[in-house]
């Protein structure tokens, strides 16, 4: 979280990636932001959005935006579509292998537009 905060305070450059309705409830999309592949997920019907790396370190493919969104004990998460490891959408932690942690990115919905900061 400290990393996220520092990025928040120092850079705060927001990139608009798409209108909110382009992300169907409980699915993800992938955005290219400054040459980085970022998976953005919309949890539920509202404006609850999360952004983590699109890179799946287990399959070494950029596919996480295509995983199934859900929760484990209340923590929102996505399951890799290739080998099914789960990643926390909040911390980027792999819930099945605590040595693995993905990057997370600030994301918000402003005037119906999804914006990511990297």
């Amino acid at each position, binding site marked *: 979280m400290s990393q996220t905060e520092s990025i928040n305070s120092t850079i705060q450059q927001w990139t608009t990636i798409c209108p909110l309705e382009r*992300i169907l409830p409980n699915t993800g999309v992938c955005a290219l932001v400054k040459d980085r592949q970022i998976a953005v997920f919309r949890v539920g019907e509202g404006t609850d959005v999360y952004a983590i790396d699109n890179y799946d370190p287990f399959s070494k493919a950029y596919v996480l935006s295509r995983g199934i969104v859900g929760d484990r004990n209340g923590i929102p998460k996505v399951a890799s579509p290739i080998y099914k490891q789960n990643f926390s959408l909040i911390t980027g932690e792999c819930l099945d292998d605590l040595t693995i942690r993905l990057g997370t990115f600030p994301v918000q919905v402003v005037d119906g537009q999804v914006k990511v900061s990297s």
Partner: protein
Amino acid sequence: MTKRLVTIGNGMVGHRFLEQMAAKGADWELICFCEEPRVAYDRVNLSGYFAGKTAEDLSLVAPDFYKDNNIQVHIGDKAISIDRANKTVTSAKGVTISYDKLVLATGSYPFVPPIKGNDLPGTFVYRTICDLEATEAYTKDCKVGVVVGGGLLGLECANALQNLGLKTHVVEFMPRLMPVQIDDAGGATLRQKIEDLGIGIHTGKSTTEIVADEHGRVHKMQFADGTELLTDTIVFSAGIRPQDELARQCGLKIGDRGGISIDDNCQTSDPDVYAIGECALYNNQIFGLVAPGYRMAEVAADRLCGSEANNFTGADMSTKLKLLGIDVASFGDAFGKTAGSKVIAIDDAIAGTYKKLVVNQDGTRLLGGILVGDATVYGTLLQLMQNQMALPPHPEDLILPPRSGVSMAMGVEQLPDTAQICSCNNVTKGQICAAIQDQELRDIGSVKSCTNAGMGCGGCVPLVTDLLKAELKKAGIAVNNHICEHFAFSRQELYSLVRSQDIHSFQQLLDRHGTGRGCEICKPAVSSILASAWNDQILDPSHVSLQDTNDSFLANIQRDGTYSVIPRIPGGEITPEKLIVLGQVAKDFGLYTKITGAQRIDLLGARVDQLPLIWQRLVAAGFESGHAYGKALRTVKSCVGSTWCRFGVQDSVSLAIEVELRYRGLRAPHKFKSAVSGCTRECAEAQSKDFGIIATEKGWNLYVCGNGGMKPQHAQLLAADLDKETLIRYVDRFLMFYIRTANRLERTATWFNKLEGGMEYLQAVIINDSLGIAEELEAEMAHQVATYACEWDVTLKDPVKLQRFQHFVNTDAPDPNIVVVAERGQNRPVFEHERQLLQIDR
């Protein structure tokens, strides 16, 4: 100095002994004399030599085994004398070698009855490959062959003569076949089965003379009862005699009727000389089976390597064989010689089987038995006997076909702690249960890794799972069948909730019966249930978030994040025009093409943004989704059937296409496959499918619950000689019943194996409608068939759905990470090490 060990004989047992010595890393100089011109081979399967097996196929010695282990083998050199005083062996070629220890593994020789004419040209014995070569050379111009001896070896030999194309007869002195192993009734059943194969059986025949023709060659046999039998050749296979000649010469102790006497250590009367295998006499008994011989080889090797752990204490002569393709088994006290023993026997002349149990006086323990024609229960019976387990209240059930609703399988609770569960890694029930209790194991994965059980062939995993469940139940730990943390229900329960409460979306189900947001387990499972129940489009907005990536992009994801495309090719029939379209599309999009195991064509390497473009072309050419991505019907494989094949009795291709089009797109707990064969030759391999159809002269046979893949299982006959309408009706009912009742990701074979009552129960439900649901099942299927639509066709017509087929939401660029290299003229994804070589950055 290294001591020298000389072995005489390189048959199956002699070779096993040398293998044991090599495996133990024994500090001996090993030398072996081998009389035959070739090293050890599989004598048990000798008749295979005439069924196409070569001497190399039969060989038991791995190439270079002797060289690699520094074992000196004198091939084709017979040891002819032993000097025990000076401890030397001399061979026919004049080699004399001294020994510190000597092992005799000289085997046995065939017994030739003292009959006039038993040495005429045209008479043979059946023991070595040389014997077979001689027989084969002589019988080139023969039409009829006789085997003298109706025992185990004689029948093997009859198989060999039949394989040579001779009209074969078996002549046995005793009044029945296999007199040592089976009784009169078993002998009669066996005789009938062998006669059905076209082999003449003549029991109770004492041969008085073999008469020659004018050229001095075998012509006919004359019997004591005045009858005679014309034949061109005779093979003696009337038992064995221990090859103890060398031992006699050098004064070792020999039994009254032959055989080198040995003790528990396999030592002869001279402590420096051991004897193993068929030449050895233990407790006045010669063991004419290979297993006891192997056991002796192990004991002798142990002793010579300084271990006292093992003793030879005789051997169980229980045996199960396939003779001429017929099961024969005999175990324990097969003839009921134990005082007070009783017999339960079932002689089924219709099925051609004979099954007999010998039980103790009060019918509580199994002492032995005989099985002819069907020996599938042999393993169970042997466990019952060897572990002295209590018999069930109706022991006859053990050899009767299972009664309706009664499961014959032995419960794991009844097995003793000593019972071996995993034969690959030799793990007993006691060890598994102790590990579960002591290490508090809760799932099958940890039981496997902690005990090694199930880590070999995996065949015992169901048994280990049952053990785990039983142990957890005993410990009062609830084993729930909840699908995941979000629903406290099994798949079957969710299915009936969806139908009975008319639930049409995941959210509805979650609101009413679940908790949390769902996960990758329950979402696809519920999606499949909704599809099976209502057949709504899986990419409709309310369903799309439930799908695995394969379903949500209507293609199969590969390791690099690209997808494969498999269009439907019903029955495997495709026009040249359509083939050309597939080739052209693959070429235009740079796709790798491969023929699948299911008579279809796989186009691999499509990026997500290419999928709609590819399918526009395919749909325009008349293709539709093949559902290779879904838990749904894959293919209905077919042979060409009566359309082309000279053996075909029905039009298998037409039926396969009709069946595939009927059930295409049907979602189920797991994928399922089918096939239609046009005759009993079964070229479409229907018996390995979830449902398979085989043509008969009168109609179609329906087989269900087969499986290929990881754990192959033959499908079982549900109903025979059906007309097409009845066939389709039964398949409708069968599939819907499976969809209603199976667990998540449970194939039909696994589902069937857990079905209480087995096939009789399934037949009652499907054929006799014992649950009164047949009409419902048919109506549900009719709804599915009526509402089918090609998922790709629907998707291509909907611009909103197509928006998702893009790698980036904010640019049209493809995934830059996808890199291919050429191999054999096609593209494939790079491997990680190649990325480094190609200096591709991530």
